[in-house]
């Protein structure tokens, strides 16, 4: 018995509407995607959904009180809120370079959180 599931790709802003055929818990066919990343997304979304996380951490000594950060790779979807909560406890100090690691291996999930911009020291 196979079932089909319609899902919207979130990999890029095109947002392709895809139909995935599922047999016994595994995805056997994907249609409607424009690129291979869509098929991969459908596969993952049905078996182990993942999401990128973008948030902020506190920073002292910079132009702004916050530094935007991004996960280097997608995190398991059900761990995203816990990771965001964890990031609220972190404070770093300027200067920070773009791409600098802010939180290594967040919550033991094997993904680093990095700065999405540079922030220099700012004289008050």
């Amino acid at each position, binding site marked *: 018995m196979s079932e089909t599931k319609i899902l919207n790709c979130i990999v890029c802003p095109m947002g392709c509407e895809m139909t995935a055929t599922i047999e016994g818990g595994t995805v056997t066919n994907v249609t409607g995607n424009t690129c291979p990343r869509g098929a991969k997304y459908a596969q993952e979304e049905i078996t182990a959904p993942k999401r990128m996380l973008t*948030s902020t951490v506190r920073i002292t000594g910079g132009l702004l009180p916050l530094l935007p950060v*991004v996960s280097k790779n997608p995190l398991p979807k059900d761990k995203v809120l816990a990771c965001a*909560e964890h990031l609220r406890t972190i404070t770093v100090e300027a200067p920070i370079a773009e791409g600098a690691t802010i939180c290594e291996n967040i919550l033991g999930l094997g993904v680093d959180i990095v700065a999405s911009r540079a922030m220099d020291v700012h004289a008050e």
Partner: protein
Amino acid sequence: MQNTLYDVIIIGGGPAGLSAAYSAYENGAKKILIIERDRELGGILQQCIHNGFGLHHFKEELTGPGYAYRCAELIKGKEEIEVLIDTMVLLITRDKTVTAVSPEHGLLKLKGKTIILTMGCRERTRGAIRIPGERPAGVFTAGAAQRMVNMEGYLPGHKIVILGSGDIGLIMARRMSLEGCKVQAVLEICPFSNGLTRNIVQCLHDYDIPLHLSHTITKIHGRDRITGITAAQVDDKMQPIPGTEFDIECDTLLLSVGLIPENELSQGLGLEMHPLTNGPIVDQRRHTTLDGIFAAGNVVHVHDLVDFVSEEAEIAGKFAAFHAQATHPPMLRRVNVKTGDGIRTCVPQRLSLPPAGEDSKLFMRVGKPERKVKLEVKSGDTVIMSKMLPVAKPSEMIAINIPAEKTATFGGEITVSINREV
């Protein structure tokens, strides 16, 4: 500075301004000035900390600040490009004199051979949509809240209702959820969302936030601080249907109810404006109706992708640079671009074609969602270009490129329209 005659003066240092500056530099402009009113370059991207930017332009997925950083890196250290931050442009006159003011330099009068307008857009506010009710604190535009949460370091509230399902509203629904707030609902007056589908999925579905389509707010409650709203369903004329009202408790209301190109300076110049895009009328080079004044990005029409803003700004930068160096071929033919059935807006609104023609990319929005239709560019009854569209949504801009050799074949006017009989 004030004694310099600039090749290109760029008003606004967001993605459009930065891309225009780099393109002007690449195309031979020697004296380029970017004027930015904020304390740093990058524009609105600095508060858009989510990812999804840059897939077309930089071929990698970036956050807003990451995209801004790459744009800024391109112009860094170039002695041809000067930057004035913390500087507000007050007036531009037809002789291409820019009057600006800054704490550091005081009042400035700057002169350019060409000017590129890249001021971007701003949000519509509560006043623009006239929501009845009290006037309590706690009603913000989604972008203002985004700046607070992502750059300034404070939360506007804890229990949130969002009116409007444009991308900023959707992104903020997720952002507030990540910061531990409860997003009660998103209300959308249209029967469809105006945001990208991927944002409905990853910002609303992921956090179990209900989206009420064909709904609006009929009353705001609370004397000092907002305590809740009354929502109601609307009919096909967008009027609230009596008897469908229900209340939602909240301490914060975020409005994501549309963006307006910021064109006070353009209007001051007397540029011809388009009533639907709310931006200046431009040709394929992003030349406005005034000689030497160019415009690009959200000031011309609101884009859904910054990548297309950069692309448009590069066109403006290139032709402004050519114009300043006066090496561009003479304009011979003016072709108007008309919008036909199904198409709400199209930029450019006209073409200025040299004899051999010129690559002209058209950016359009449909008036309502469509499925399996054909986009056609016609000259009279002749179809010059066409493109099959599996889906077309008002929220997603459609682009079609007319190659130079084809633009050499028509004159007068062309029409872009949707053909549903395919």
